[in-house]
């Protein structure tokens, strides 16, 4: 539910973003999307989304529990630390922040997920731990994909996995650039896409679509504002 | 004054103007040669763009004049009118002098090139040595140009191209020595360095040196052909101007007329090295198969070649003019082309006249052989990618040098054996 900060009245023509009424009509404001279900509520409760938008529409596909040998091995090791779901045939593990580093280590070494496809993040400003970090892994030997998700508070450091998969070097730098999540143990954590002196992290929900680091623009480009 | 001029013209003086000490005729020859070379450079400019285009599925310049024929003139005009920038912080004296040294070096090679038994500006006893010496002066011009531009890329480009030219000069020298060695296989046992002497040696030995001692002459010829391409920074060896790495090599900072001097130098250099190769290995001004196809009938047939080529060109231009679109806009171009075709036809007719026909014979065959080399230069540029610098040096030092030495030794051995 992206809440755009009300653009100041001065800017009459609001190019691009259709003005979204911020009224509370938004159906799912109460509970965060099921996929990011916080571990606290009981598993069954998180399953059903609060109320589908159109009452007549049948309930959409829902994440179901994922039973597999892999999951049992991981459950034996981590117990309540992880939960395994399947959504539309795609398996993902919901892990705790503390446990996720070790989980990724095991997934790579024992479960042969030798290729880290992607590292990315989602931002839910409403939750007490607003950032959802997602690692998408793939195993060449058994041609299988899995996603590992973990929640992190703002400003809390996330574990860097550059030692496990060198490809995550730039991927983590981009997540830091766009979300501001610091990765402990990253060899060279600095911005990758935005200019070095840029302040602010664009992909956060509270960062407006038209907003810019006007101070950087004025200093470096010598123009009043990018718009 | 008048008899000074006519004294050179009477029949018994069978020597180049330089040797005859006749300054007037030497000047006339110099003007002819330089006028001819500039004309050829202008044609080369058009030919290179057209041939390269057709090799690359394009049609080349078509807009300036019929089939782009006025393109070289347009280029020359543009370069003359363009602003001539001297970069700030550049060493103006050296910057201004560099292209002149290159032109000096390249054009002074022409004064010993024999277009015919007496058609050369002069014939020095050390003709070939003089040529190699002066062509090595060209390196100085490049080094100076690179240094005077006062920026990294031209400096690195200049160092690279001078290193390349210095190392390929050696391979060139060795190939040349083996050719000169062949000239000494005659009665009195001493060869000659003079260019006319070399061609006369080939005449007396009734064989082009490229085919003498069958594989050896050819190998020396090929070694020279490769070294000459590297010497003029062309085709696979055009690393100093490698656009993708060093932007434009030593003449990055030049513009306008000064830059065109570099281009003039490059094309003139190509013609110079091709003419050395022709003189040494392909029997200079001799017509093909002088001994095999002896007799007046064959002489007559071969003497018609110059006229035939010009008629062929005229036919081509008329065909082009005929195919021109019939709209009013194209009418001017069609007329221009037809006029150009008529001029070529008239030249062909003149070449048919008996006195002109025999006189032009030597020059025609020499220029025809050079034309083949120039076509090869363009063909290389279309097909070959560029050598990397270390590979380029490796070919120069580890392939051409040993092969050149080997050929030299074997030629000497063959000479002793056939004795």
């Amino acid at each position: 539910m992206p809440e755009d900060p009300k653009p100041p009245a001065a800017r009459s023509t609001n190019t691009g973003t259709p003005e979204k009424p911020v009224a509370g009509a938004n159906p799912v404001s109460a509970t965060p999307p099921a996929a990011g279900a916080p571990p606290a509520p009981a598993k069954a409760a998180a399953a059903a989304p609060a109320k589908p938008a159109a009452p007549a529409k049948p309930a959409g596909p829902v994440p179901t529990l994922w039973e597999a040998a892999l999951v049992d091995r991981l459950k034996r090791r981590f117990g309540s630390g992880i939960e395994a779901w399947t959504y539309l045939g795609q398996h993902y593990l919901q892990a705790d922040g503390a446990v996720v580093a070790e989980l990724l280590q095991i997934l790579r070494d024992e479960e042969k997920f030798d290729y880290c496809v992607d590292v990315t993040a989602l931002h839910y400003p409403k939750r007490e731990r607003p950032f959802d970090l997602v690692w998408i892994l793939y195993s060449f030997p058994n041609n299988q994909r899995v996603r590992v998700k973990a929640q992190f508070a703002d400003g809390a450091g996330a574990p860097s996995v550059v030692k496990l998969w060198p490809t995550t070097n730039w991927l983590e730098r981009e997540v830091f650039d766009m979300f501001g999540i610091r990765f402990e143990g990253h060899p060279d954590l600095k911005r990758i896409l935005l200019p070095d002196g840029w302040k602010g992290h664009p992909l956060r929900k509270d960062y407006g679509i038209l907003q810019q680091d006007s101070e950087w623009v004025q200093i470096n480009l010598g123009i009043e504002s990018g718009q | 004054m008048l008899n000074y001029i006519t004294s050179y013209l009477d029949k018994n003086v069978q020597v180049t103007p330089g040797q005859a000490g006749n300054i007037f005729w030497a000047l006339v020859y110099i003007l002819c040669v330089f006028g001819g070379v500039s004309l050829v450079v202008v044609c080369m400019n058009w030919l290179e763009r057209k041939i390269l285009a057709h090799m690359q599925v394009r049609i080349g310049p078509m807009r300036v004049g019929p089939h782009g024929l006025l393109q070289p003139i347009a280029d020359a005009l543009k370069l003359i009118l363009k602003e001539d920038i001297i970069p700030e912080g550049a060493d103006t004296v050296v910057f201004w002098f560099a292209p002149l040294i290159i032109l000096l070096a390249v054009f002074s090679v022409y004064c010993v090139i024999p277009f015919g038994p007496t058609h050369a500006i002069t014939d020095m006893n050390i003709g070939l040595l003089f040529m190699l010496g002066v062509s090595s002066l060209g390196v100085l011009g490049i080094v100076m140009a690179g240094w005077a531009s006062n920026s990294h890329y031209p400096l690195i480009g200049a160092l690279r191209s001078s290193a390349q030219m210095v190392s390929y000069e050696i391979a060139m020298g060795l190939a040349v020595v083996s050719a000169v060695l062949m000239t000494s296989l005659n009665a009195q046992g001493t060869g000659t360095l003079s260019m006319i002497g070399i061609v006369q040696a080939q005449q007396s030995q009734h064989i082009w040196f490229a085919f003498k001692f069958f594989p050896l002459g050819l190998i020396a010829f090929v070694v020279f052909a490769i070294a000459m391409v590297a010497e003029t920074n062309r085709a696979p060896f055009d690393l100093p101007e490698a656009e993708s790495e060093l932007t434009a090599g030593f003449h990055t900072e030049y513009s306008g007329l000064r830059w065109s001097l570099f281009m003039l130098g490059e094309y003139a250099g190509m013609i110079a090295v091709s003419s050395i190769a022709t003189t040494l290995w392909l029997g200079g001004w001799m017509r093909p198969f002088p001994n095999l196809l002896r007799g007046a009938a064959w002489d007559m047939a071969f003497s018609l070649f110059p006229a035939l080529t010009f008629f062929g060109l005229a036919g081509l231009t008329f065909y082009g003019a005929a195919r021109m679109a019939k709209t009013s806009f194209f009418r001017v171009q069609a007329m221009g082309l037809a006029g150009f075709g008529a001029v070529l036809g008239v030249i062909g007719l003149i070449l048919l006249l008996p006195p002109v026909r025999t006189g032009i014979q030597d020059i025609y065959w020499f220029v025809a052989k050079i034309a083949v080399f120039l076509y090869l230069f363009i063909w290389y540029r279309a097909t070959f990618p560029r050598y990397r610098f270390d590979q380029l040096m490796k070919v120069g030092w580890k392939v051409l040098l040993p092969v050149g030495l080997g050929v030299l030794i074997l030629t000497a051995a063959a000479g002793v054996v056939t004795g």
Partner: protein
Amino acid sequence: MNDPNSAVSPLDLDAKESTFLDANELILNMGPQHPATHGVLRVILKLDGEKVLGLECIIGYLHRGVEKIAENRTYAMFNPYVDRMDYVAAVSNGLGYCEAVEKLLNVEAPPRANYIRVILAELNRIASHQLWLGTHALDIGAMTPLFYTFRDREEILKIFEKYCGARLTTHAFRIGGCLYETYDGFEQDVRNFLDFVGPKINEYEELLTTNRIWVRRTRDVGVISGKDCIALGVTGPVLRASGVKWDLRKAQPYAAYKKFDFEIPTGTNGDTYDRYLVRMAEMRQSIRIIRQAVDGLPSGPIMAKVSKVIKPPVGEIYHSIEAPKGELGYFIASDGSTQPYRVRVRPPSFVNLQALDLMCKDQLVADVIAVIGTLDIVLGEVDR
């Protein structure tokens, strides 16, 4: 790495106490305006004479914030933006995005739509490889292939233009299938093209494959092993040229790829020459696929039942396809509204570019240009 933007002049011996004979490190700044960096890529090279000690890529000059825009557009409105990322292979971008949203909607495109999608995607692969070959050969100095490849690529662009009105950024697909029915004469055009391009690829091979200078400039240049590729997440022809036989069209088939048989060409020692051979072979395999697809094109609807306003249920999915440059993935999280909550694009060029430093170690400056060419990166996709 000292401050990269202080370009130390090569002759400035005061910068470091170094004796006359000691090699002083030259920091060479290549790009972002450079004829051979395929767009706005800036590479800081640390050189010892001609040899590359290390390099660092500075990217972001073409960053347009596509993922931020996605969060403020509806699913259908975002579709054209996807074409602007890898503008050389726009059809594959569109295919990936539409299939990801269809998976989110739990909808399957009808068989005819899938066949059309495969045909256009493979045509796009040939066009992308042709553009790669032209510019790559030009970087190494061979001028002629560029004109050959662009002449042949023109035919493909004509087919795209006839089909969907655009040549490069085609926006050819919609969520749920294809919007346009194939124009009459489509099969004939494609068949003519297949017969036309087959011998043309042999022409490229004649020009380059046995060209000694080409081989010398590409053999053992920018070598990367299979293991390093997987560790660095490198995918696509670069991975296959290092000996790993992995192609998403076979490993996890999508669209109608299950129905066609084709091989996956692989190389052995992962150098520039093998990547060249793999891409040429891939072009031939694409011709095989298109021929089978055109012959077996089924009739029937081209659009699945998808409501005008696309409101997928809450949830997240990741879907990836085999784009000409490698694995192109879309991670879409929806919150049930008409606008996606988060669209994450996993671009192959961005990840492949990471391998540039490893591949250029101890190579020469001229090889850096060749390696950038062989990685076939497009800066629109790297910077997003």
